[in-house]
């Protein structure tokens, strides 16, 4: 039987016979998924409230990676200062973009929104080249997370373990924000009936701005976290934005839990798929997307009727 499996897929045979290898692949899946979750959560949040599909989210991520390079590698500040600086920088950029550009298009057609966000992709892509040039950079790991940690059955890179922990922490923080704070309740209300909320004297535009800032800051933070293993380079946003869209569509646009589950599924499908059938690395993620779209077009945790306004 095992010989038959080995014939079909040597990788699957190793997975079945070597639990240590399988465990490492599981950690690979989770750590990759969690980094993507942090970024995709921002994309999903922005869509959930603003109803705008922000193509520029990927380029925000790229800026995050560049900013951590500047602050951590060039200025010599600690890595985490750099990561927070990335989040703050993207928050500021997001505030400017929301106030000057996005505000004009909330009532416009989706096509107009797509065109605007795409224009931002091109403009910020060129801006990054003006600021940082076109060469690729290399960002070191923070000193304390440079090596590997002994998990008993195997060693695993400490930095990737940190991603496995920080992802769920961000999930909990976002959940708490959305469910337990006044800001969260107002945000929820704004997605349901913004006119009524405005009539009650709530500053709806301010809620929109704050959501866009938070979502974009997550992209910047995620880019900073990715920088040590995904070197800042022009065009690094192209692959990432597609991965994020797969995740939020699988999970259900606008759903926090959906994004979390979608990101985990993406990590699992990519890593185990690549081991079992190496020629199909990307195919599995799109297969996942296809199956979900066929069975539940609104995503695993989405709502059947797309909101719209």
């Amino acid at each position: 039987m095992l010989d038959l499996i080995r014939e079909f897929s040597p990788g699957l045979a190793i997975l079945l016979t070597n639990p240590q290898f399988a465990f490492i692949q599981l950690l690979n899946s989770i750590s990759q998924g969690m980094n993507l979750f942090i970024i995709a959560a921002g994309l999903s949040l922005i869509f959930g409230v603003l109803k705008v599909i922000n193509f520029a989210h990927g380029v925000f991520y790229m800026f995050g990676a560049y900013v951590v390079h500047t602050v951590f590698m060039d200025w010599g500040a600690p890595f985490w200062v750099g990561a927070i600086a990335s989040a703050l920088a993207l928050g500021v950029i997001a505030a400017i973009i929301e106030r000057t550009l996005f505000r004009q298009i909330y009532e416009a057609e989706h096509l107009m929104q797509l065109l605007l966000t795409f224009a931002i992709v091109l403009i910020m892509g060129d801006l990054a080249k003006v600021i940082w040039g076109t060469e690729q950079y290399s960002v070191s790991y923070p000193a304390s997370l440079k090596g590997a940690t002994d998990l008993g059955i195997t060693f695993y890179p400490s930095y990737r373990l940190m991603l496995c922990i920080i992802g769920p922490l961000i999930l909990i923080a976002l959940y708490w924000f959305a469910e337990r704070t006044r800001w969260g309740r107002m945000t929820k209300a704004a997605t349901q009936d913004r006119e009524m909320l405005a009539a009650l004297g709530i500053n709806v535009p301010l809620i929109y701005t704050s959501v866009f800032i938070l979502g974009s800051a997550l992209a910047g933070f995620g880019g900073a976290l990715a920088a040590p293993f995904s070197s800042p380079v022009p065009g690094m946003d192209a692959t990432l934005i597609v991965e994020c869209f797969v995740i939020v569509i699988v999970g259900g646009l606008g759903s926090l839990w959906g994004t979390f589950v979608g990101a985990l599924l993406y990590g699992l499908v990519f890593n185990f798929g690549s081991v079992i059938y190496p020629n199909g690395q990307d195919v599995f993620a799109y297969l996942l997307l296809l199956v979900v779209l066929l069975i539940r077009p609104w995503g695993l945790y989405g709502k059947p009727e797309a909101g719209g306004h």
Partner: protein
Amino acid sequence: MKRILAGAVALAAMGAGSAALAQDIKIGVLYPTSGGGAIYGGPAMVGHNLAVDEINAAGGINGRMLVTVARDSKLNPAAAASAAKEMVTKDGVDVLMGGLSSAVGLAISEVAKQEGIVYLATIPKTIQMTTSKLHPHVFRTSSNTDFEGDAMAQLIKKIGGKKVCDIQLDYAYGHDLADGLKAALKRHAPDVEVVLDLRPKLRATDYNVFITQIMGAGCDVVTSGLWGSHFVDFAQQASPFGLFNNIKAYISGGEVASHEIAGKMGDDYPPNVISNTYELWYHAVSPNHKVFQEKIAEKSGTKETAMWPVLSYTGVKFYAEAVAKSGGTKSEGIIKALEGMTIDTPVGPRTINAADHQANTGQFWGPMVKKDGFSYKVMDPVTYIPAEIK
């Protein structure tokens, strides 16, 4: 009547204008100058422009000046092909030159074949361009995947490697380098076994799934052609696993020994790497080479220059020599002149083989080590491995 006359005058003027322009020789050059490829395209244009300036300063070729028509190849075969076509049909260029990735090289070569215009590939390395997809109009002045694979096999033999894990990007360059390496191993070291073949996608960002397979395969040598940011990402992800410490050597094509990579990675550049490059700013093979490096440094604004200028520079020099020899820009004449032609380049003489239109461009190979006076790893000792398949 007046209008017709005016039209005739305008037409005549245009005719005169184009006759005057016909004096110039138009080189259509395609390097990626935007997006992720700009890091290569920018320096490539520096070398190209230096060669053009030198030739024009010396009075051109038979009194005709060289003019560059540059377009962005965008690291994208479709974009490069349409740009190449436009340069031929709209701009009326006399020759096509450049290309970076293997996929782009093949696309431009196809245009050259259709349009009957000579194309000098200065960087793309896929062997297909000079074998299965060879046609009379394509020439290559860079190295190729067979030469590169052959050098890698020699190095595996030299360090006594026995079990090889090969990880290559999943497109023309990676596939062809893997084939070139395997064929060369049969010649140089038939007892060496390739135990693992991995093919991450071009622009992949997460290599952990491949790294852990390599760790489990028990190989003593890892071979690869992961280039540019692919190598940086792979190395950064593999280092915490201790991959580079557990093998005899990571033998890599794709020029990850170049200063562009080593300089950026600093102390993070992994140990046990043996790789190649066309040019090392800290290593001059002759006084001529030194002069060339100084000129490039001046144009680049730094003495720590990239390795691409020498390639684009060499392409222009080959073409100029062919125009001088054939006495014009007609494709037939250029083809005849280029076949078997030898010129002096900054890194030594190079000859284009008449049979397969491939120049004998070898590369510098060596281990990357820490050395006093450098803040990053440098190649030491530097060995030139010539381009020849024995």
